[in-house]
């Protein structure tokens, strides 16, 4: 049963990913990418990462892909679709891909199988529960946390401030990420702000080469 779902999700994901790359229509490839993300969320569920599966669907399949589709439809790319793909780059990418896959296959073939099979039989929290039986940290002990589901464990790891026993705390990276998002928000507003100054030279050259873009300009100004 587990294997069936694994092959279903991973096969669907790879087919959708191939469709993203090979599709000529940008909107269709964006939709295929959304499906690939949903399949990957299924793989996350199979790896018992339920919180990340939900985040994956909400953030990546929801917010990010809506943004992608919005931009694709806003820019009206249908006029540029007819440019053929260069054959040289296709061969180059194939060589690159096969080389990378060869390296990965060689590495995976050298991996000891016993370690993997043994680990996959354990339930989440079993190792740490045994190891941290004696250690008591905050009001809630580590072994208690490890018995819970992944959302509790991620939250505990993200927000705990007691690092006396030498474990990592992710409070500082979390706060720095909030700063990063603030910077990204301001950056997007600055980049997309319509400036009132006259346009620089390169654009005039472009419009002289391709005159029929004039009607589109007014719709984009809003």
């Amino acid at each position: 049963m587990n294997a069936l779902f694994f092959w279903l999700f991973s096969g669907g994901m790879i087919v959708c990913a191939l469709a993203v790359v090979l599709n000529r229509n940008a909107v269709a490839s964006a939709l295929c990418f959304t499906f690939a993300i949903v399949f990957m969320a299924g793989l996350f569920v199979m790896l018992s990462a339920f919180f990340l599966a939900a985040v994956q669907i909400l953030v990546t399949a929801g917010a990010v892909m809506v943004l992608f589709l919005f931009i694709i439809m806003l820019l009206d790319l249908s006029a540029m679709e007819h440019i053929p793909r260069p054959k040289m780059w296709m061969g180059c990418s194939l060589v690159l891909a096969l080389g990378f896959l060869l390296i990965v296959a060689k590495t995976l073939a050298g991996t000891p199988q016993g370690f993997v099979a043994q680990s996959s039989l354990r339930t989440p929290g079993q190792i740490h529960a045994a190891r941290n039986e004696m250690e008591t940290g905050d009001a809630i002990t580590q072994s208690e946390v490890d018995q819970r589901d992944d959302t509790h464990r991620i939250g505990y790891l993200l927000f705990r401030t007691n690092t006396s026993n030498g474990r990592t705390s992710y409070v500082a990276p979390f706060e720095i990420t909030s700063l990063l998002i603030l910077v990204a928000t301001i950056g997007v507003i600055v980049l997309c702000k319509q400036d009132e100054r006259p346009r620089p030279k390169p654009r005039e050259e472009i419009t002289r080469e391709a005159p029929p873009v004039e009607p589109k300009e007014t719709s984009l100004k809003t």
Partner: protein
Amino acid sequence: MEITLNHYLAVAAVLFVIGLMGVVMRRNLLIIYMSLEMMLQAANLTFVAFSRFNNHIDGQVFVFFVITVAAAEVSVGLALIVALYRLKRTTQVQDLTTLKF
């Protein structure tokens, strides 16, 4: 058939390679950007698989950060593409030759 860590790593490698091929092969900036995102997702899958099979939750926290940073990165990158489209009226990489000499 038992699904092991190697299966997940192989699937992630295939996904990464497809993303890489998209970056090299395609000429549309938006598709290239989507392929980059796909490579990030392949890395996420390896993180979660290692986290599950080694029983360390730290990998999942890392994926959480990666998803957050990727969302911020996508917003900035798409804003750049829109600004570029306003300036040049194109999103094809072969038309962006300002730095070429």
